[in-house]
């Protein structure tokens, strides 16, 4: 599904150049569940942002479905992103002013989908993550676990083939964290590719493959049986 080749990302300020990613080579197949681990500052989030096309690499290649998107403009990336990639964030990033329904619908709003179909799809995905009874609530009225379920629903409502999750359980207690992980696992079993950044080894265990990053390098890759 995606292949990173000699990928480098450097941040430049006036005087210092900080290398966040250095010659990273990763390949991820359709339907995989990959966990990315590593200490703070190792480049996990940068990697995720580039994979999610929110950021562009300084050099190297990024093949997405066989297409090298490394040199694409923001607008071009946006088109691919909204078709294929869903996001889940540690801090949920729901819009406070919008209801649960509207937050999920947001992912469809920029896709030229008629209102009736949007309604159906949002209703379906709300059922799936068990949040349907909260459709009219505002994010501030929900618990953290519920908010993250809304975020998951939002990530998949557009039938995205890949979900990028940046520490999705970081702001949740153990029980709610567990819940979200099971939901991701279920989605993966249904065929969605999942790439997840996490600090928690137990949550990384849900993934079939774990990539360990340190100072911008891939240090180990381990497969789970």
């Amino acid at each position, binding site marked *: 599904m995606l292949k990173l080749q000699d990928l480098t990302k450097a941040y430049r300020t006036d005087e210092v150049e900080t290398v966040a990613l250095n010659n990273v080579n990763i390949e991820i197949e359709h339907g995989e569940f990959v966990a990315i681990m590593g200490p703070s500052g190792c480049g996990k*989030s940068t990697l995720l*942002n580039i994979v*999610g096309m*929110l*950021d562009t690499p300084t050099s190297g290649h990024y093949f997405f479905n066989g297409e090298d998107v490394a040199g694409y403009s923001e*607008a071009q990336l*946006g088109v691919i*992103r*909204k078709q294929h990639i869903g*996001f889940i*964030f*540690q*801090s949920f*990033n*729901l*819009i*406070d*002013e919008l209801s649960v329904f509207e937050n999920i619908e*947001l*992912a469809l*709003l*920029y*896709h030229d989908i008629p209102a009736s179909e949007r309604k159906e799809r949002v209703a379906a995905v709300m059922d799936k993550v068990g949040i349907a009874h909260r459709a009219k609530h505002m994010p*501030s009225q929900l618990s953290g676990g519920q908010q993250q379920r809304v975020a998951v629903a*939002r990530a998949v409502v557009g039938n995205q083939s890949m979900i990028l999750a940046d520490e999705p359980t970081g702001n949740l207690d153990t029980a709610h964290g567990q819940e979200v992980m099971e939901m991701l696992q279920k989605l993966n079993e249904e065929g969605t590719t999942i790439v997840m950044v996490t600090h928690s080894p137990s949550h990384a265990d849900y993934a079939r493959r774990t990539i360990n990053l340190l100072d911008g390098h891939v240090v180990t890759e381990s497969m789970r049986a």
Partner: protein
Amino acid sequence: MILKNYTVSAWRNIYNHKLFSAINILGLAIGLAACMLIALFVRDEVSYDRFWDNADNIYRMHQTFLPTGRPPMVFSVAAGKIYHALEQDFPQVVEASREANKRATFIMDNQYFEEQISLVDPGFFQIFDFNVLEGSLENTLEDQSSLVLNKTLADKYFPDGSALGQSITINADVYEREFVVRAIIEDMPENSQLAASAIVSIVEEEWKVQSWMFDQWFSVNAHLYFSLTPGSDITDINDQMPAFIDRHFPEQDNGDRVSSFILLNSQNIEDLHLLGPSNGEYKPMGSMATVITFSAVAILILVIASINFMNLSTARASQRAKEVSLRKVMGASRKNLVVQFIGESIIITLVALFVSVVIVEMALPIYNQTIGKQLAFNYASTDVLIIIGLAVSVGVLGGIYPALILSGFRPAEVLKANQSSETGASAKLRAALVIFQFAVSITLFVSTAVVYGQMLYAKNKDLGFNKENLLVINNLFRDAASEKLSLLVEEYKRLPQAISVTWSNDAPGRPTENNTGMRTPEMPETESLLMGNRGIGYDYFETYQIPLLAGRYYDINMNDERATYESIVAGEGHSSALIINETALNRFALGTPQEAVGKLLYRPLSGDEGEVIREHTIIGVIPDVYLDTLKKEMRPEIFELRPEFAQYITIRFTGDPAAMVSAAQAIWEQEVPSIPFGYDHAIDQLAEQYATEQGEMTMFAAFSGLAIFIACLGLYGLASFTAERRTKEIGVRKVMGATVYDIVKLLVWQFSKPVIIANLIAWPVSFYAMSIWLESFVYRIEDVLIFSFCAIAGIAALLIAWATVAGNSMRVAKANPIKALRYE
């Protein structure tokens, strides 16, 4: 200690949020400056003639005519005869005095200077307390050769020493004799309807030849001032006026009571400038409507600026939530915080106040020029305290709502983070306030456009004659000049630049009115219609380029001259030619212009041998021509041939106006050296009528513009804070696939909504207000135009709002979403 902490915190807040502070300070400063400028104008307007010691008891009598078929004619002047009867009939009248301003020539060492003299009665100096610099006003006016000069004139004529006791020759037409300066007074303040610079007493015998000045009941040419004993009520006198009129005015032949068509009404001197009649006034009037309008505009501007202040402070509340919470955790009470935030807002308003004073000082010269006043800010007076008080109250008012909002945050919620601390209510209030600001701005915009449109309409209306290239020479009423009338006309005709030359009793844009009663042979003898009467010379219509509807112009070869009283009495015939305008044609119901030619109009003339009738044969009919102001309805007018008499010579010329003037002046100075040459261009004189309106119009437009600017400033600030506050949302939307365009659209639409709602409020309001305003004009633009102004204002407001918001939105929309989403 705590105060120091507040001050430090306040200062850093101002300093660290430069945009916020700049918008707040600039908006408030402009608002305060606009307010101060308007306040100076308003204060000046309402201060007219309040400085007289006895102002409360000084009144002026105004005479009103109620002619049949014409709107009432209200004059600020009254018949000269009333003066003597007034003191007799009313014991509460302490002193009375007429005051007539006349142009006269001052002659010194064979040099001639044109000045305005005030002819007054001895009571004048008892009514008005002038500040005497030299000499004495006591009994001055009893002496017929006494002259009182103001400082400026005294210095002008006697620069090398005191003017006191010096003599000067004055030619006032009916006399030329020597006067002695008995007193020198301070120049009159600008804020008075009186304009007295050289004062002499009225000697009635001398003016008998111009009996209309002081010796008639139905001619009004002088102001009539009088003072009452303290505590008397003017309504007593006003109520007795009908009886007074019937007692004193000459009886009418037809038995009509004079009080049925003449009214006398007196007004306190303090009310004259804003509420008095303008017809016959020597100085420009003010208008109460203008004063009220501008006061309202000033308040609205200040409100708009204060709203900015409130909006920006509450919008920023979420940013300061953390500070508030921490202070509360450290033990601050709500009261402490309210004091702190109000203190901050007072500091901001005081800075704004300082800036606004700078703005006022810089704007005053051009402002004064625009409105034709000499306004100044008096730092030594209580003004300063009032303005500081105003600024502080704006600070408190603007600060109190944000202070209550901010101080109401509950720390636990705020510190938990990830919670927007803004309540829906304050966002709604903010939207409502923005709607209010824009509704006001749009209304002002539409009003400005309508006022301007009306001005333009009045200025560009086809007056019925060609007002370009007309040189009008005045000062012809002086004997020395009128003797040379035909000579001057002949000489001017010979000038190569002159296309055509004529003469007349009045000139375009001059406020004098001359009216005469006339009737058709069919009308009963006791009835007549009051006609506007214009005495003209040959070639008048040719010179002014006024076409004929029927008949012919006056012709020097056709014996068109009018019969005199004496010739009629002597039985030498009583026929005269006459040209009338279309309104006269219709009032007399004379049929078509062609039918009217040849018909007769009768005009009674009275003299020593009793009343005789002069028959006028209509030889021509012209369309209605607007030689006077468009503010008055068109009169029925007659254009009467007066070959021997004129106040003005008019020359239609080609080529350079300056060359024309100097050629005309050279001839004048050769022929009439004893009278200064005076001239104007018809087009300037016509424009002069609108000078006050023009100035006020410019002022109105400028302040409307400022109101819109301040509102936009607020919108800009609000947009940037909203964009900042919505960074996360925008990030999320972008991740969800929103393009830059989508985001800009979202933000711009958010700010378009209040502007559109504001339009819906402003349109009916401004339409209603402006159609009422237009009603006061006889010749006015159509109501439909207001609609198009509304549409233009609406679109303009939207465009301005978009331009204000779009830049910010662009910046936020283009930002990389990961920045927004990463640092939560």
